[in-house]
């Protein structure tokens, strides 16, 4: 088991490393052009060259990367080229916002999609058709349209929730809840649509297994077999899909944070790219990759807990 964890951890570290190498090469390959973009078209070549040298952009790329990497492992991603603020400070103050909505959406999606998927698989008939049609719609309509719809209905017309802004959980739990509820729902609908389909499929699959009949022949009720045995066996494929969907959730969070004016990593990314603030972009790419790796590791562990065979492979 320990070996399993270590191997997954190692492959995650390698993945993050490679992503930073690729991202760094692409972001910094521009060299002198980057200084030009910062200073604008009117700056003289002399000033541009001086700026490039000041930012260390004239050095060989590998040397720049080595410099960045040696600081990054200590948690120092450099400073913003425009505000001079430490990238890490900006990231850490915004991390909680993004994690609030992304993890909230993952949990909500997991619960709702298991419920809907099992219901559709076990009941069949009309319930199944409703869930199927709902899944297709949830998958088809872009998340930001759903978010806009939620804002218009629940925040602007019904005024049940605040349309914009974020209240930290440390300030007020109820406030935090009202500020993240709509973003979480908006984010999770697409995931629910996809994962519910997967749960439905794997539950139908598991229900046809021989051991279901054998367990029932021993006097276990259908409800109990589904709740204990079928769900556990169907959980693996569903978790795998959820892991892939999580990456999509981070994408969705960028747009949803913009709509609900939440000061998260996505908003930071949008601002940084508009101004070509490369150190911030680089830091964000790294942090996102680390988040993805951690979540995948957590899901791998959950898989291993569900299925003893995974632990061996």
């Amino acid at each position, binding site marked *: 088991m320990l070996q399993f964890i270590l191997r997954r951890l190692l492959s995650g570290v390698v*993945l993050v490393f490679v*992503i930073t190498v*690729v991202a760094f090469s*692409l972001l910094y*390959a*521009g060299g002198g052009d980057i200084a030009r973009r910062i200073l604008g078209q009117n700056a003289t070549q002399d000033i541009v060259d001086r700026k490039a040298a000041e930012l260390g952009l004239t050095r060989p790329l590998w040397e720049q990367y080595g410099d960045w990497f040696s600081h990054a492992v200590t948690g120092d991603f450099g400073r913003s080229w425009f505000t001079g603020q430490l990238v890490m400070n900006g990231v850490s103050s915004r991390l909680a916002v993004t994690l609030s909505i992304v993890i909230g959406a993952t949990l909500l999606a997991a619960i709702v999609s298991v419920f809907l998927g099992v219901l559709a698989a076990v009941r069949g008939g009309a319930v199944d058709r409703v869930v199927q049609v709902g899944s*297709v*719609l949830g998958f*088809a*309509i*872009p*998340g*930001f*349209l759903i978010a*806009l719809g939620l*804002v*218009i209905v629940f925040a*602007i017309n019904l005024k049940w929730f605040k349309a914009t802004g974020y209240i930290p959980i440390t300030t007020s739990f109820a406030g935090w809840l009202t500020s993240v509820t709509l973003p979480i729902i908006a984010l999770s609908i697409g995931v629910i649509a*996809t994962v519910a389909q997967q749960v439905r499929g794997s539950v139908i699959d598991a229900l*046809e*297994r*021989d*051991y279901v*009949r*054998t*367990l*029932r*022949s*021993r*006097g*276990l*009720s259908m409800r*109990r077999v589904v709740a*204990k045995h079928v769900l*556990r*066996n169907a959980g693996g494929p569903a978790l795998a899909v959820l892991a*892939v*969907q999580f*990456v*999509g959730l*981070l*994408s969705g969070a*960028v*747009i949803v944070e913009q709509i609900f004016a939440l000061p998260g990593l*996505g908003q930071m*990314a*949008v601002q*940084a*790219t508009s101004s*070509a603030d*490369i150190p911030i*972009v680089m830091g964000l*790419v790294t942090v*996102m*990759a680390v988040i*993805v790796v951690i979540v*995948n590791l957590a899901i791998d562990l959950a898989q291993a807990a*569900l299925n*003893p*065979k995974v632990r061996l492979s």
Partner: protein
Amino acid sequence: MTELTTPIAPAAARVSLLRRLLRNPVGVVSLAFLAIVGLVAVIGSALAPYDPNLASLQLVLAPPSPDHILGADSAGRDVLSRLLAATQISIAAALLGLVVALVVGVTAGLIAGYYGGWFDQVSSWFTGLVMALPGIVVLLAARAVVGPSVWYSMLIFGVLLSPAYFRLVYAAVTAVKNELYVDAARVSGLSDLRIIARHILSVVRAPVIIQSAIIAGIAIAIQSGLEFLGLGDMSVPTWGSMLNDGFSNIYKAPLLMLWPSLAIGLTCMALVLLANAMRDELERSVRPVGRRRRRAAAVVAEERPAVVVHADDAKTRTGEVLLSVRDLVVGYDKPDGSLTRVVRGVSLDIRRGEVHGLIGESGSGKTQTAFAVLGLLPAGGRVVSGSIGFDGLELAGAGEKVYRGVRGSRIAYVPQEPMSNLDGAFTIGSQLVEPMRLTLGISKAEAKERALGLLERVGIPNPKRTFAAYPHEISGGMAQRVLIAGAVSCDPELLIADEPTTALDVTVQAEVLDLVRDLQEERQMGLLLVTHNFGVVADLCDRVSVMQSGLIVETGPVRSIFAHAEHPYTQSLLDAILEDGPARGALAGTPEVAR
């Protein structure tokens, strides 16, 4: 990225997918809508009544009027004209992403799948890399380098989406590559390129088309999303930038948001519905008819020949009848409303402590009879008529309430295939303890003690270790012993064993049969032994019923049947086990339909 799964259909999809789609209502509506969008994309800018970028201060946020049917936006530009022009750019951008993803993904998938080697390694690894990063974050990073451009964004997004095609094509190619007909083509000297074009592309064509509809939807959604964030080139009218303008003025002119929302939402929905309709049509055409009724003996005519009944001899057991099946008919409802009868009027009795063999070849309905008694027929199956009397209870058509007091505690079941009948996610011990606690109402410790005793009784060398083991850690023979232990764990009066030794090694078979016999004698259980082997019947049974095509053709005490079998089918089954018997021909009298 989004996980996309599309079934890989065999190359059978020769009939034009388009023609079949035209018979599917959802498919027709989606196609029609997309055709209109496509038409607007091509000629939309020519239809526009005004220049889409012509701003007018008088018209800022103007409501709809005869001159400007949809009103004007925050810069006083005609919304209808912008919508028409935006369609062109939004669709073109999505197509660019789609084509890039298609070319990169399909090419890489073909090469990696067909040739393997280092290219396979690199592309699979690259796929993992791309899937680990949120697409929008990559696009944002790219924007920081190349500036705002719809076209660059879609170029990069195409590469990000290519794994969806890569994995689809890769899976199809590796599956087909080693098929015999591809080998044959290779041996006959066809070039790799011709083989790929002829045998492999034809397999992936349909799934790739379906995938493309989904990818196009995602491309439109992402592209509009980026433009909506204000990250696009704001001088170009797109659906996303119109939405952005509408959202900024949501309080002043809420209608502005409606049109681009409808355009994006309906187009994405039409694409996904189209993909679904295509998938449905493909699955319908490749689904084999009646696949799940593998064991069903479909017989058209309702003839019911006379049953050969042998009289009881002196040694036959004469006790209280435990199970009494009368004229049992089991059927499966077909989608067209008709009924396939797999058991067509079976009657048999089992007394307490009696072993009754039910013999017949695959598909004769013997397993279905056993499942009917247990009330565990597969989905779609039901007892159509007849009765199943068990010690005064009527089980035919009985609900879960009746069966709750019967299954496990009074009637138990030993399955055929040991490994698939244990849940691989739980330890063997927990699968033994759970039913005992529920059925017998005993404590966990008591159940564990009992389970260890049972494991020892069925001949497991180290009960404690097996108790803690997972099913994949033990052999098939051991697993069957575990299942037998589980079946007798709640002291049933009737045991139903469905070919309990068929899946085992020959050396283990005899041991397991001995175990079943010993347990049966020890506990005086009635035993319904389903088998296709007369040798097993001779070893264990008091009485035997021979089944063919859903009917019992001959029944009676074992000795009598062995001595003078009358039905030709019974004779041919018997011949099959007699070493010095006549040459084995086809089984006599089996109706063709049953094969």
